[in-house]
């Protein structure tokens, strides 16, 4: 796969926003009128990204990390502040219209269907907008209607659709011109489990069978695990990981967890344990219930044996479970903002 020409390439891609700093209240508003103050926020900070045709990439990161901003840069609706970006060889923001033919995009929280008219009319209009000839249009349309089971929805105006129904229609709308690239920005937000499963299956089929290049941002671990082989993690505008989803444990895998089951309910076991482990760096204690205790630690600094020895004296435990980090827990930490990217002192990582 990586020997083909990249379909998406970004280097040093940066987007800064200027934001008005407005003190609260009427006085603040007046003050702002007299002397406006602005601050600059770097939403996407010099990212390098290369995606090859047919790849499926999960783009993950906590709220405000810069995911949507990156998608907007790739779709050509934002102009970069600095750096290079090219999609199929063209700069999206300079050739927004040409670029639009090459991509489909779904923004989970917005619909691209016309609100008050039947869904089928929206599709037809899109067919005209993308200048599909009748035969091509009908072929793709029938295909999408079948796999996404849209037949019962076609006569309904978009505003009367449920969220899941709307998402199916939106997905079809983004693919009606058979683009080589599909961007999905939080596509499964608010969908129920069965709709989600169908949605993933569809994307997977498009990806596997037709070589669709997929870039997906999602907060849903299932989406990421099931749809993407490659994961790009972004935090505060920086890319902090780019590699196979399964390899992520090697990069961040030093964070381990010790789950203790206590013999008696001990409400203050976390305080006791914290005391017992005093002085050990990189150790965090939480107590989910009265009879369980969770200890996270850096496997490069301290071993589970050492921790158990320290704790055995003061905490009455009946069972110990040592949890190797899963890709899932690492991503969860990323979203919670507790994933650490630093290398521990004296580590060989």
């Amino acid at each position, binding site marked *: 796969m990586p020997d083909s020409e990249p379909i998406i390439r970004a280097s040093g891609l940066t987007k800064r926003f200027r934001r008005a700093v407005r003190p609260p209240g009427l006085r603040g508003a007046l003050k702002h009128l007299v002397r406006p103050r602005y601050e600059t926020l770097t939403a996407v900070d010099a990212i390098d990204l290369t995606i090859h045709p047919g790849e499926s990439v999960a783009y993950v990161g906590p709220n405000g990390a810069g995911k949507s901003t990156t998608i907007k840069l790739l779709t050509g609706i934002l102009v970069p502040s600095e750096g290079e970006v090219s999609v199929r060889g063209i700069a999206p923001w300079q050739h927004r219209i040409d670029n639009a033919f090459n991509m489909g995009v779904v923004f989970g929280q*917005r619909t691209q269907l016309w609100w*008050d008219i039947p869904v089928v009319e929206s599709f037809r209009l899109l067919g005209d907008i*993308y200048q599909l000839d009748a035969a091509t249009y009908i072929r793709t349309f029938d295909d999408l209607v079948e796999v996404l089971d849209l037949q019962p929805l076609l006569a309904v105006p978009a505003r009367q659709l449920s969220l899941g129904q709307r998402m199916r229609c939106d997905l079809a709308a983004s693919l009606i011109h058979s683009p080589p690239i599909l961007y999905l920005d939080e596509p499964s937000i608010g969908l129920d489990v069965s709709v989600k499963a169908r949605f993933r299956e569809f994307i997977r089929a498009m990806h596997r069978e037709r*070589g669709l290049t997929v870039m997906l941002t999602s907060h849903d671990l299932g989406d990421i695990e099931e749809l993407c082989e490659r994961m790009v993690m972004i935090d505060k505008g920086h890319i902090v990981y780019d590699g196979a989803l399964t390899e992520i444990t090697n990069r961040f895998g030093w964070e381990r967890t010790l789950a203790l089951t206590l013999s008696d309910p001990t409400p203050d076991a976390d305080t006791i344990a914290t005391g017992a482990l005093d002085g050990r760096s990189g150790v965090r204690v939480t107590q989910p219930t009265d009879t369980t205790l969770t200890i996270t630690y850096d496997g490069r600094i301290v071993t589970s044996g050492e921790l158990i020895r320290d704790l055995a004296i003061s905490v009455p435990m009946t069972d110990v479970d040592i949890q190797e980090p899963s890709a899932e827990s690492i991503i969860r930490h990323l979203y919670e903002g507790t994933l650490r990217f630093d290398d521990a002192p004296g580590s060989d990582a």
Partner: protein
Amino acid sequence: MSELAIAPPKHPSALKRYVSIARMALQQTLAYRGTTLATVLILFLWIAILFSFWNSAYAGREEIAGYTHRDMRTYILLAYAINALVGWRVARGMMGRIRTGEIVIDMVRPLNYRTTQLAIAAGGGVIEGCISFGIAIGLGLLFFDIRPPDSPLAAGLFIFSVLLGFVTKVLVVFLISLLTFWTLQGVGIMWAQGSVIAILSGTLVPLALLPGWIRVVAEVLPLRGIVATPVSIYIGTADGLALAGLLALQLAWLAALWWVTDRAWLRAFRAVEIQGG
């Protein structure tokens, strides 16, 4: 993969897309025909007020600024009918899409944004036009004894000029709506633009009745092309060379606005951000 790609045609028959968009907007407006009807009816409330005002102004007089009473009634009725085109729904729509960030949906499509907005306004304009001219002509013929066009040629040029004025108004409103990118507040701008257009287009009173310098400003600005120019062609206040001059001014402004809106759109697009993630 590349066999999936649909190569963009070199010279896309762009018109068809925009015609389809206009058709869609027409359907959308039909869904809101109640609102459109109400808006137009409220505009005609002004007509009632103006009619009674002019009734007393014309008491014992033949002409005011070259208009007979019958001319004036005709003027008012037509002016309001024309100014009902590109109503506040269009302005609010344009501003709202920018303010809420809905505009991303328009921008991920292979469409010129300005032309898209024009097509949307045109689709809505068909409905607005049917309603407002329907009422104006109905009222005018039944109750107010309005005059016919000055000549068949004047009738034809009137329609042509109304169309030019329509596009002018859309472009002006579009230009103003771009301010939303910076202020993110549409309501104030929307009301202000409504009043300014009503005065400078000659909807409120014929331009000849505007005081001093406002009149001079109104006579050179493109806004007169929205209402004053077509109506004076209909009534025959402008004919011959004057008429040709007015149409030329209308066309020149249209060309200028077409260019300016494209530039302004690019500037707005590059300088500012799309809201919401």
